[in-house]
């Protein structure tokens, strides 16, 4: 890892060399490892060390971005030169106002030495423990266990200087016997709450209810576990909770602010500083995170901004800028849904005939303005009858509006959990959504997975 002073020194030196009117330099480093197991054996175990420098230069209102992971001084100079050359041929973007001014950044701890100390041997030992637990019950296990050490530093020519070191640990487990499967997942910035036995128990219980039966698709009462709810929240974040979608007229929030859109029990917000989530003190522009409330007791309230979309409206960024050039908008990455008063057991007991969903799979947008998505259930879908989970059922396809779903929420669990698949593509920055379980009075299943 580069550490705070070296990281900021490197970025400051880039700024000093830059002839641009405004310059932003971002550094993202990664030291990570991921162990994957299937059929109750480790089949993949990888480790990565990488560092990326992202330079955003502005000449007047002409903007260009250059990224490199080659860090010798001549290469960094070459990248800066390349960025300037690109900016010169760029067309001005009159809507660009400025990179952000410096603001005070909250001091929070997001680094864990214990996560850093997880050696390959330690991880393999832990996986062996869980595989033994699963095997004892007659099941096979697959999953992944990953830990990472990530540094984010942002410096700009207006005086922004931000650095943070993050730890992350994620684990997910699928237990199956060829007929049924069950899932459990965990994500944290701290190793202390990571306890394998309850996770194994959770997944094993889901898979232990026998051969799934087939039921007819249609509208059912549903209980959605936090894993499933977090997926719905993420889609709302992507489709409509941010200023770019509103400015472009493609958000379900357009013309709806101040109006009640979903059930009054529903409050959804983004909060990078809430210790229950995966905390992030500032965004990828070095702006401190502000809490943004999307739905307050069912009423559409506000959206997230980065410096560009905020500049368009003469506002300040809410601290939701993503890595430049971000043309997708300031999509929130620290989502929360407020918990309710129910226990999961109470919610199940209140269902006469319905379906219990652990998680969704391969969801995708069907109609953005109504937030209609489709996807499949996976790893723990059950029929509930007369207040009891009766039998596992074959996976179902749903095609449903998330807004309609949230309008029909009749109970919300008190307990919440942090959910993240931990999927890491090109750059590691693990995020999580804090979600409760919800009971929905009508949810549309449009198909069933049967050959």
């Amino acid at each position: 890892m580069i550490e705070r002073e070296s990281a900021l020194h490197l970025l400051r030196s880039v700024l000093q060399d830059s002839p641009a009117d405004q310059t932003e330099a971002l550094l993202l480093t990664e030291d990570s490892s991921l162990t994957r197991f299937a059929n109750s054996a480790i089949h993949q175990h990888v480790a990565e060390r990488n560092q990326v420098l992202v330079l955003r230069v502005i000449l007047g209102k002409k903007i260009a971005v250059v990224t490199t992971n080659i860090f010798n001084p001549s290469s960094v100079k070459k990248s800066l030169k390349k960025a300037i050359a690109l900016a010169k041929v760029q067309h001005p973007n009159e809507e660009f106002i400025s990179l952000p001014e410096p603001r005070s950044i909250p001091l929070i701890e997001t680094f864990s030495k214990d996560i850093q100390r997880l050696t390959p041997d330690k991880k393999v030992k832990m996986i062996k423990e869980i595989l033994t637990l699963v095997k004892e019950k007659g099941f096979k296990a697959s999953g992944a266990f990953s830990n990472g050490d990530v540094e984010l530093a942002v410096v700009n020519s207006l005086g922004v200087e931000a650095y943070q070191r993050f730890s992350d640990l994620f684990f997910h487990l699928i237990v199956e016997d060829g007929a049924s499967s069950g899932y459990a997942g965990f994500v944290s910035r701290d190793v202390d709450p990571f306890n394998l036995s309850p996770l194994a128990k959770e997944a094993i219980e889901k898979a232990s209810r026998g051969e799934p039966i087939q039921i007819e698709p249609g509208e059912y009462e549903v209980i959605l576990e936090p894993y499933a709810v977090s997926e719905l929240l993420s889609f709302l974040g992507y489709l409509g909770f941010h200023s770019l979608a509103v400015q472009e007229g493609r958000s379900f929030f357009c013309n709806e602010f101040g109006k009640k859109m979903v059930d009054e029990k529903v409050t959804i917000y983004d909060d990078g500083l809430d210790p229950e989530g995966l905390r992030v003190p500032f965004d990828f522009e070095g702006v401190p995170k502000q809490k943004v409330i999307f739905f307050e007791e069912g009423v559409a309230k506000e959206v997230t901004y980065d410096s560009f979309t905020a500049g368009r409206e003469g506002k300040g960024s809410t601290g939701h800028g993503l890595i430049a050039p971000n043309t997708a908008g300031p999509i929130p990455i620290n989502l929360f849904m407020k918990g309710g008063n129910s226990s999961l057991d109470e919610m199940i007991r209140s269902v006469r005939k319905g379906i219990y969903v652990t998680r969704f799979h391969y969801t995708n947008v069907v109609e953005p303005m109504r937030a209609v998505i489709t996807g499949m259930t996976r790893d723990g879908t059950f029929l509930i009858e007369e207040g009891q989970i009766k039998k596992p059922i074959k996976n179902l396809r749903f095609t449903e509006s998330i807004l309609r779903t949230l309008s029909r929420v009749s109970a919300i669990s008190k307990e919440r959990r942090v959910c993240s698949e931990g999927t890491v593509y090109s750059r590691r920055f693990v995020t999580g959504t804090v979600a409760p379980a919800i009971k929905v009075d009508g949810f549309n299943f449009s198909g069933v997975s049967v050959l």
Partner: protein
Amino acid sequence: MKTLILNILDLAKLKGADYADIRIVRRQNEEIEVKNGKVEALTSDEDFGFGIRILIKGAWGFACSSKVAKREMETVFGRALKIAKASSKVKGKEIVFPSSPPRVDVYGTPVSIDPFDVVPERKIDLLLKADEIIRRNKKVKISEAFLGSYKTEKTFASTEGSYIEQEIVECGAGIAATAIEGGEVQVRSYPNSFRGNFATKGYEWIEELALEHHAQRVADEAEQLLSAKPCPSKITTLILDSSQLALQIHESIGHPIELDRILGTEASYAGTSFLRPEMVGHLKYGSEMVNIVADATYPGGLGTFGYDDEGIEAKGFPIISQGILVNLLTSRETAHYLGKESNGTMRADGWNRIPLIRMTNISIEPGEWTLEGMIADTEEGLFLSTNRSWSIDDKRINFQFGTEIGWEIKGGKLGDIVKNPTYTGITLKFWNSCDAIGSRDHWQMWGTPNCGKGEPGQVAHVGHGAAPARFRNIQVGVMK
């Protein structure tokens, strides 16, 4: 470079590795995104690093770093070795990794115009021109144009003596018009949704696409969709255009035939497959006219290369012949489940990922029909074009797709436009209902640059050749 590589391979032999390979990969990307007359993104990325894969004591270890230097490479080798040794304590069935004859070769994508030799100004002008034509339609509120150029230089070397240098050049472009009115949002794009169409070709490919010639049509169709009637909900005859059929092949044939999924090693993320190795040679996957091939040598295909990332030369082979499943996509480690050798489909998304079984160019062979003839032969149904959404379960059985636009077919003629079209089905039932496939004249290669798989996540660039095709008794209109 060669000295650095050979040093690691010597070290691997010294430490008793059963096998080791190293890849050094340099990637160069340039992307330009235009939106509403402005160049929203002008970016240049450079990515360089190496990855070492080692097999020892029956277990794999992999470690990688962006610092390509002797000392770091030795440290990373040590890390990979440590990982493999730790993993060997929880190994499953004995790994069968047959040796492969060493190959020393150089491969390069044939290009007429290197896209990195074309100045950004020229590319920006091309996109702005198309964008300006789209914006002439006042119902269009978001106009977009994209152009991407990619170059990957990789050196693969193994303890078996292979030393392969490859340079893969890719580029692609596309335009999209989003019409918005009264809460209705409708998109049309060309040549395909999600940024366009991509190929292993030079800048000549961008010129062939002729974006501005299609700009007005996409804008007009986006406007027409605003007032179009909704897709009906019924069971009917479905004709898919070539681009949508390409994605249908991708999701419901390409992924299920990946042998690593079949053997369960993708269970924790992308999922498994309804197929089993013993189904090869027997399973009636589709109707007799369905012939699917995998061909990593097809000129210009986005899944075209010289050698895979295990040093196996690219090849072409049938997957489905006259409706019967005859082969799967395999690796050196998995091919023995079929009693065969690897068919060379192991590819990694850069230096910092291990190779996985990935699609190459998975294509349907053309049939005899013209599109016009197919429509004229259809009494009642829908013709759907250009993907908008996709979803399929973890075993690849139940799928649902949405397209940007559809047309009713009545009495053998195209009728009204329908908006928000969707269709759903069961993989085997669907492919067995295919009763017409377009001819070579209607067949086209499509590049899919966003195929996700693996943990940590990997994005593969794959290709699919397809012609329009007809399917009977399909559920359409599943919108709630």
